[in-house]
């Protein structure tokens, strides 16, 4: 198998790129071990060194050569070898017994042994001793051999037990094998790429500052989770905000004409000629069409929708979209294999006629239906091939034994036959479905995994997608857990400002800005702020769309305090000709306990007169100078907001003043009360 070199993680999956060398033999290269649930519609195969002739994805059932029978046979052999050892030992022990009887016996009293005989007897030891030695040595060896054989026997018994056991099936993992046909033999460089669902990511940031909030390091990380079934070892990782998609077809964009209805254009397909069934001789037995079965199982074994159709085998499933997951992002609906009578929807503008009918019902609808009569459906020239039927390599011709209406016609390969053709025994079909369901469940769990606090699923920033590449090579196991990957890091210089909104909050907030070398927009996500090595705050952050600019809020500065006082004055009306003048005076005092001079930005608002209403607003006085300010973080334009920059000496105090007047008719009052401060 060629290794994974590059992975791009998208919010809804990952694009895997494998790259490596292979050798073609007789124009064939087989790359096995591809994941079972890879999105086959996105598979691309690039070959350098020869021309690609054909690419087929087949199931590799991975049932080992060593079957049940083999394990039994090996057990048999082991048992026999064990019996041989036992027989050999019995023979040796008998031999030792025999050896003991090999002594002279004094039989005949009349004929006592001579001195020579006695001497010769003594010499017999020279034969008997080495013999006994050898028997003992052999017995010792034999005992050792027997012990080893006992262990082997146990292993064999276990193997036999496991072969017929769930244990083996639990480890079973069928895969896809890619058969590439090329026009030459020799070494090839092959690049494969395909989409896997079951992976997602989310950005997070780290800001490490010194205690003066001047020097800092800013780092972006990606929290990546994957359960694609493949470990990614030493891969170049990239993360993207764009959805993970590929399409092959050209999207069709017809002209949009506002006019009177016209019949549809002639299609490229035509119904089968009549009279096929008459070609079958009556003598040929057919099976009666089976009654409409209840949907057997609509889990998608191919990563696709599966639906049951009339068939004779109860476990026969017909793939509705066999090897094309609906990965196209266009509103090209993957049309379900609809019955002939269902009129498909017009494509670009969904059901315009229907909406018109709803608006003007009942009269318009009734008229419409009479004046624009419905075409008979199916219209005689309105036939299209089911896109699922267009993978001809997965179509099989039904033989004469098939039910009437199916025999002699092309049928998509049923799941059962597909598995059988791949060499998977019928007994393993249920297990195959279990494996697929388990893989899919793991993928869905990874995809739907709740993100840690403040994390946001990545998406386009102001409509534009971005991609970030990880540094170095990354190892990410397929375990469905979050792994943190470093994306970039850069030293920055911070500029700290102090911001207060005294109207709402008597506290002063720290805001740091910096410029980044990196020009790409930064995505929303949490920022961990470490000041002087200690975790200061983990804050959600909206990210930044503008190039290279970083703005972050770091929480409250305890050493600055704000006090706000508001006074109202109402001027008498007479001199204005029956008008009232309301003056609001806002006074803000700030006390600093900081060891250096700082500047605090104070945010205040001046009311805004609504157009066409007899009210006028006037800014009377402001010290320091109040500068209009057009709004906060969100894009909506805000009017009447002002900010004042108040310098504060180290350990000193500051005072700001903002005065405005609202003038209106003496008979009116302000909605929501006259006191606006």
């Amino acid at each position, binding site marked *: 198998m060629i290794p994974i070199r590059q992975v791009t993680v998208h919010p809804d999956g990952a694009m895997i790129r494998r790259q490596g060398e292979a050798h073609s033999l007789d124009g064939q290269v087989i790359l096995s071990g591809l994941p079972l649930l890879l999105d086959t519609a996105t598979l*691309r195969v690039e070959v350098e060194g020869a021309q690609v002739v054909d*690419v087929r994805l087949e199931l590799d059932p991975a049932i080992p050569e060593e079957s049940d029978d083999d394990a039994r046979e090996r057990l048999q052999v082991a048992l026999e070898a064990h019996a041989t050892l036992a027989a*050999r030992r019995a023979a040796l022990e008998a031999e030792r017994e025999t050896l003991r009887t090999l002594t002279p016996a004094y039989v005949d009293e009349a004929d006592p042994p001579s001195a020579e005989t006695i001497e010769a007897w003594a010499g017999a030891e020279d034969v008997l001793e080495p013999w006994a030695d050898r028997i003992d040595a052999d017995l010792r060896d034999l005992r050792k051999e027997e012990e080893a054989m006992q262990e082997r026997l146990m292993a064999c018994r276990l193997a036999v037990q496991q072969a017929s056991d769930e244990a083996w099936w639990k480890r079973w993992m069928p895969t896809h094998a890619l058969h590439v046909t090329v026009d030459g033999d020799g070494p090839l460089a092959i690049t494969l790429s395909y989409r896997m669902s079951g992976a997602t990511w989310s950005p997070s940031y780290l800001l490490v500052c010194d205690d003066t909030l001047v020097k800092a390091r800013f780092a972006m990380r990606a929290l990546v989770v994957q359960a694609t079934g493949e470990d990614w070892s030493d891969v170049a990782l990239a993360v993207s905000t764009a959805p993970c998609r*590929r399409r092959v077809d050209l999207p069709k964009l017809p002209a949009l004409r506002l006019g009177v209805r016209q019949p549809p254009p002639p299609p490229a397909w035509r119904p089968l000629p009549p009279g096929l069934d008459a070609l079958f001789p009556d003598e040929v037995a057919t099976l009666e069409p089976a009654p409409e079965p209840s949907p057997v199982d609509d889990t998608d074994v191919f990563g696709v929708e599966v639906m049951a159709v009339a068939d004779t085998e109860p476990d026969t499933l017909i793939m509705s979209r066999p090897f094309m997951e609906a990965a196209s992002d266009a509103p090209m609906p993957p049309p379900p294999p609809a019955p002939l009578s269902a009129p498909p929807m017009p494509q670009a503008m969904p059901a315009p006629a229907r909406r018109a009918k709803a608006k003007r019902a009942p009269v318009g609808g009734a008229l419409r239906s009479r004046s624009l009569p419905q075409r008979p459906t199916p*219209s005689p020239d309105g036939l299209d091939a089911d896109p699922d039927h267009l993978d001809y390599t997965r179509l099989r011709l039904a033989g004469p034994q098939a039910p009437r209406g199916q025999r002699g016609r092309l049928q998509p390969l049923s799941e059962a036959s597909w598995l059988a053709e791949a060499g998977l025994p019928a007994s393993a079909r249920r297990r195959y479905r279990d494996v697929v369901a388990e893989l899919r469940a793991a993928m869905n769990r990874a995809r739907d995994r709740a993100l840690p606090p403040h994390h946001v699923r990545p998406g386009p920033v102001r409509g534009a997608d971005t991609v970030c590449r990880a540094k170095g090579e990354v190892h990410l196991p397929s375990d469905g857990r979050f792994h943190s990957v470093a994306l970039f890091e850069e030293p920055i210089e911070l500029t700290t400002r102090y911001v207060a909104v005294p109207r709402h909050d008597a506290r002063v907030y720290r805001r740091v800005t910096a410029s980044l070398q990196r020009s790409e927009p930064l995505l929303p996500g949490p920022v961990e702020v470490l000041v002087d090595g200690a975790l200061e705050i983990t804050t959600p952050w909206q990210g930044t769309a503008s190039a290279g600019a970083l703005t972050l809020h770091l929480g409250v500065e305890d050493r600055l305090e704000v006090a706000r006082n508001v006074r109202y004055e109402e001027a008498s009306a007479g001199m204005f000709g029956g008008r009232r003048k309301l003056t609001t005076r806002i006074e803000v005092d700030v006390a600093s306990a900081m060891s250096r001079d700082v500047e605090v930005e104070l945010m205040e608002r001046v009311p805004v007169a609504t157009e066409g209403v007899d009210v006028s607003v006037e800014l009377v006085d402001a010290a320091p100078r109040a500068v209009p300010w057009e709004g906060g973080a969100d894009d909506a334009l805000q009017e009447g907001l002002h900010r004042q920059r108040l310098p504060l000496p180290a350990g000193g105090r500051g005072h700001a003043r903002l005065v405005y007047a609202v003038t209106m008719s003496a008979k009116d009052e302000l909605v929501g009360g006259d006191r606006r401060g």
Partner: protein
Amino acid sequence: MDEATVDAPAVRIELFEDRAAVVREVALRDGRQALRIGPLSPLLRAEAVAFVGGQSVLVEDMEVRRTLQRRVDADPAALTSLREVEEATSDAVSQAEDAVRRADDRVSRAHEVLQAAADATPAALQSGEAPQRWLSAVRRLADARRAAVDAAHEARQGLARAQQAHQRAAQALAELRLGHPVEQAWLHARVVANGAGSARFRYVLPCALWRPLHRATLQGNEVRWEVQAAAWNVTGESWNDVELVCSTARPGERAEPPVLREDRLQVQRRETELIVEARDEEVTQSRDGERAIATHLPGVDDGGETRVYVAPKPVSLQSHGKPVLLTLAELQMPCQRRWEATPERGAAVVLRTRQSQTDTRPLLAGPVHLVRDGESVGRTQIELVAPGEPFSVGWGSHDSLRVVRRTDHRTDRTLLRGTHVHTFDTRLRLSHLGSDMVTVHITERVPVSELTEVSVSLEDVTPPATGPDRDGFLTWELVLHPGDQQTITLTTQVKAASRVVLPF
């Protein structure tokens, strides 16, 4: 008259969209003769058989007889080979049994001899035999017994192995003997031949057919287009090295014209309200209409004229129901290529080529396997392309180009003036996440009014675009550098009289 069983090899197969015509050649003697031709497909019908060529032949009568044959009889070669294996393994078993018996005899003999020697030892040593020589001899006997014991066990193992092999062979043989019977048909014909030679007969069968498909290879500015055929066969006949013809002819179509029926008129109240329908109309190519999806793979339209393709080489088609792919024709077409996006139909930027069909026959509808610059990118499909017609093919999307589209629709109904105004603000954002410079063509559409009551105006286009043409298409050509992001905005207004019902 004696009936002669003859084999008639298939020489030519014509495949249609739902059936096949088989032409076989049979050798004939001079004069009148009875033939039994076969085995043939069980789907054969006597009325579908005609003698069509070769030696002139008078057919007196013809009949199809069907036989149910055991698998064994249907495939004698398999039976022979399996039987040979079974016999060989059976022999091996009896040989192994003999070996075991002999080894056991040897063990008992060695045992007896050793026992006798051991029993005689005391007396022999007493009687003055040289003990060393005697004992060495006894030891040799003991060694011999050991060897005999080992040999006996080896023989037993050999026997077990032989028995297993035999069991497997016997099982395979039993399966062949007991499997489902096979149906075969035989053509019994009495013919009078005018001279010795060979004659051809032809018959039509269901359960064999073809469909066109394509393989397109894009290399630079040229497309190599291979027209291929997928052929299926489950007739029960296997055809080897035959001449293959794939045709769009419809032998099953009716011969007489359709019946014309009367048209009885009725009236109803006219509609007062004008309902406008937005109609998707593709301008240069066939349009998307309302079409039903066929439950089986339908036939392909041939543009009104029967198209016939002859396979360039002899072909073999086995009866297994799986497709066999073969190349029928090859075309070279120069093309123009560019990256195109239609954001209304998806965020992808797809490589599109435009080329003219260079064949004298049309390209028939079917799937196309795409190879783009050495990379297999997947499968698309084409519809009927007439000779000389320019057509487009999509070659897969760019992995690092994205278009995001957003449309805001505002409606202003000014009932006093009797009009309503629809304003569409469309905003496109393009992002290039890759590392190479790309030129992208972006197409948007504005509605085209065919009615005086409805007017369409283009309020704002930034950056300026080419168009709109008379079909309402606007095109931008943008150059995107790595990391680029670009924005396109488009504002359209549709004004209509208030009695007009617009589809949006």
